[in-house]
């Protein structure tokens, strides 16, 4: 049995919270640079350039890319031969978020659903555990902002609508979201599984480097077609009109029930924050 201390996990999560919120991934930076070339609207081009400038300031001055430093979403892959010592895994992750959001001057954005009273330390944390073979331990921190999360939806389509029905749902969702999720966005799509699994697939698709296609050529073709249709909507950067509404569409798919066709759309703003570590 390989042992990993709870304190090591806490410190790792702390660092990942801070780096995810201040260092925009190189994949997003490249996608934004490409978007500047593609954009025809002068105002849109200017907004995209300012987002690049913003990322540079955040990285150099170590302040958050966006003031909404998100709900801390954590993905854990823990080998079945790994044992966490000196505390529980959940407590270790929660404490890491607490420390990261305090020491990193990150905004605490979590509140009670009715009273709206802030919990004060950005906890609880949404944790997705995956038990895998062997003795590896991989942890990903993916802070998710409220603006783009609010525009996300899950639906149970009728199987008869087919691929075209799925495409219509995704495009319609982006259209109705308009300027609200801070375009340019990355559109995460989960197809199949069950109601909750579709949402999780959509969220996991956002961890893929921006613009990397799904390895299945049929799905990659749908991603490409969807991106083209979305960018014809005219929403543009910040929803003020333009050609670049989304930087990428990522689809993850798994088989579904013979009666069902679950589809989830998880919209992500350009601050596609996720940082991972292996212990």
């Amino acid at each position: 049995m390989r042992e990993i201390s709870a304190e090591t996990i806490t410190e790792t999560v702390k660092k990942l919270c801070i780096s995810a919120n201040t260092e925009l991934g190189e994949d997003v930076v490249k996608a934004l640079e490409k978007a500047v070339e593609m954009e025809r609207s002068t105002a849109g081009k200017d907004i995209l350039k300012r987002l690049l400038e913003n990322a540079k300031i955040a990285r150099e001055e170590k302040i958050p890319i966006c003031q909404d430093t998100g709900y801390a979403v954590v993905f854990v892959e823990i080998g079945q031969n790994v044992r966490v010592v000196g505390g529980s895994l959940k407590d270790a992750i929660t404490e890491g978020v607490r420390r990261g959001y305090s020491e990193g001057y990150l905004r605490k954005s979590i509140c009670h659903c009715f009273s709206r009273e802030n919990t004060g330390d950005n906890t609880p944390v949404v944790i997705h555990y995956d038990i895998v073979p062997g003795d590896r331990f991989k942890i990903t921190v993916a802070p998710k902002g409220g603006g783009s999360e609010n525009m996300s939806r899950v639906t149970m389509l009728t199987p008869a609508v087919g691929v075209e029905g799925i495409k219509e749902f995704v495009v319609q969702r982006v259209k109705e979201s308009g300027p609200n999720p801070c375009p340019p966005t990355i559109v995460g799509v989960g197809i199949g599984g069950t109601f909750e699994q579709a949402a999780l697939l959509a969220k996991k698709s956002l961890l893929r480097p921006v613009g990397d296609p799904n390895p299945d050529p049929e799905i990659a073709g749908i991603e490409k077609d969807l991106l083209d249709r979305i960018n014809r909507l005219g929403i543009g950067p910040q929803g003020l009109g333009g050609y670049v509404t989304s930087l990428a569409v990522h689809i993850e798919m798994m088989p579904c029930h013979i009666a069902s066709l679950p589809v989830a759309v998880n919209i992500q703003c350009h601050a596609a924050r996720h940082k991972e570590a292996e212990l």
Partner: protein
Amino acid sequence: MKEPKKLTTPLTDDDVIALKIGDTVLLSGVIYSARDAAHRRLVELIKADKPLPFELQGQVIYYMGPSPAPPGRPIGAAGPTTSYRMDPYAPTLIAHGLKGMIGKGARNDAVKEAMQKHRAVYFAAIGGAGALMSKSILSAEVIAYPELGPEAIRRLEVKDMPLVVANDVHGGDLYVEGVKQYSRI
């Protein structure tokens, strides 16, 4: 693009009437940050006929909840939050003298009607550019509801904050016009 217009708060009717959608503005002076929870409280105070924590007449509210200020900075990241969530409250504030709102995303018909009727303007700031936006904030002071944390009302002193007019008093809506211009469907 046209040269940006320099504006200083508080705003007058004449300032607001002169603005048209698509105009870029560099805003200076004192503005106030307030978002969801603070709006709920402000409107409750107005309904109860009680005094507000700041005078609304001619003022500008920024829909923003900053990240904490690291040592040596007046504020952390400070970009706009999505405005539609303030739509249920905005017409009441506009009717009581609010002249400007800064946020991101489209407004509903009730807000747009109140803006036309009482002469107020809605500016869009760049969502997701919190680090950049913080550069135009010179000072920040919590003046009400500290228990709301990031949602507390702050008095902000700003210098040349880059904004674009998204809704004007003439009924223009940049979110509608801009998209119409670039739609290819």
